[in-house]
């Protein structure tokens, strides 16, 4: 059977690895290429890079990071942040990324999902969703609202409706980030993850809130996620990826244990 994937997320600013809390207070914590290599050695199943600069100069640095990563690690990785056009996607893919993720731009211009899927295949296109709880609002019947610009701008768009629309446009996967849980290390937003994952046919990566191995166990079982994104808990060396995988395996969640 398919293994549940454990995916470290590397936020990159001007070529440096960084980690913020609720999208603020970013501190530089190292070289993304070295970190990716270390996570590959520890058994990461995939790696996600988010370019949080996304200025023209920042983009060129990011493409160079992608190229260097592709030369040394042989597992899939995706790149997101500031992807606005099919041409942006092409640059990242040609530099060696397996997948690109679109977030704010996809909300503003949903056609980019279909264009990207046509150009590179659905398996290349990850829909990044930043979601905030918004119960008791008729615009968001699922109780969850899409937010953009790194969580700062509410859109009035229902998260579940958007996930289904993006799937029908050709998104191959969803990376579902809870803004309420992000950076808290208090656990993933389980209800949100289960809601989206059970209503779409494409895989869902849970994101936001991981602090303990138990949190991954919870979201990969009760939350019905296909994969779990992690950041602080490995960046700050509270856990190694292999420790997390051993814990999950011991609790009946199948993970890839040989690499």
């Amino acid at each position, binding site marked *: 059977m398919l*293994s549940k994937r454990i995916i470290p997320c590397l936020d990159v600013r001007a070529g440096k690895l960084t980690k913020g809390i609720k999208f603020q207070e970013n501190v530089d914590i190292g070289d993304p290429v070295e970190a990716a290599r270390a996570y590959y050695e520890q058994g990461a199943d995939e790696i996600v890079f988010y370019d949080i600069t996304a200025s023209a100069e920042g983009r060129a640095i990011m493409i160079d990071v992608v190229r260097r990563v592709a030369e040394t690690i042989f597992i899939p990785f995706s790149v997101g942040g500031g992807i606005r056009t099919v041409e942006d996607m092409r640059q990242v893919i*040609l530099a060696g990324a397996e997948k690109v993720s679109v977030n704010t731009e996809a909300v503003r211009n949903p056609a980019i999902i279909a264009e990207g899927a046509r150009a590179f295949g659905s398996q290349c296109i990850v829909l990044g969703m930043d979601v905030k709880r918004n119960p008791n609002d008729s615009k968001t019947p699922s109780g969850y609202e899409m937010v953009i610009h790194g969580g700062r701008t509410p859109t009035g768009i229902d998260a579940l409706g958007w996930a289904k629309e993006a799937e029908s446009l050709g998104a191959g996967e969803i990376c579902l980030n809870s803004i309420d849980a992000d950076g808290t290390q208090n656990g993933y937003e389980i209800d949100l993850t289960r809601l989206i994952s059970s209503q779409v046919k494409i895989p869902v990566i849970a994101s936001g809130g991981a602090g303990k191995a138990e949190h991954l166990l919870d979201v990969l079982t009760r939350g019905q996620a296909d994969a779990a994104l992690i950041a602080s808990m490995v960046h700050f060396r509270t856990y190694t990826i292999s420790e997390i995988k051993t814990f999950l395996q011991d609790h009946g969640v199948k993970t890839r244990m040989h*690499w």
Partner: protein
Amino acid sequence: MIGIIDYRAGNLTSVVRALEFLSEPCMITQDPRVLNDASHIIFPGVGAAGAAMANLSESGLDLHLKKWVREGKPVLGICLGTQVIFDHSEEDDTPCLGIVPGCVRRFPADLEAEGRKLKIPHMGWNRVEFRQGHPVFAGIPEAAEFYFVHAYYPSPADEGWTAGRTDYGIRFCAAVAKDNLVAVQFHPEKSGRPGLALLANFCRWGGKDAQ
């Protein structure tokens, strides 16, 4: 030199990077003359069968590939490359190369495991139970997993050509071996060390199935 067939079927650079990492001289090209001189051929591919077949016949690479297989050159198919070597694909009802008798089927929509509906595409890491004794799969640990991303799977006409099986609600053929041809549904170039080991085995392989 390892020749990698470029027929505009997705991004094939990751195959090149993996071979470079293994220090295997390789060339990615659509030029049949260059590929003709290669000792081994890799036939990768990502995307849709219809577009891939159109590109292959337009460039004439379909006939060259058939010739290389016939002549006994070691050939490795990967993902979509593996699918189009069969007679037919259910993806948009596409006639394919017919190098290996058989067809390519879509995963049934209602696959289940442990009481939960399985998602399509089959995306992520899974085990492959390889047939013992084939040089290209030699030394791969039983617990090794490989990276898959596909909604269709190969179904060879002769069971004997199935060289590896994977379980995803059904047990499907994840690796094919027939004479000098080996074809895998997963991506060895994205499957960490076990995938690199498989590629290294292929580059050293003379094209004879030990069985």
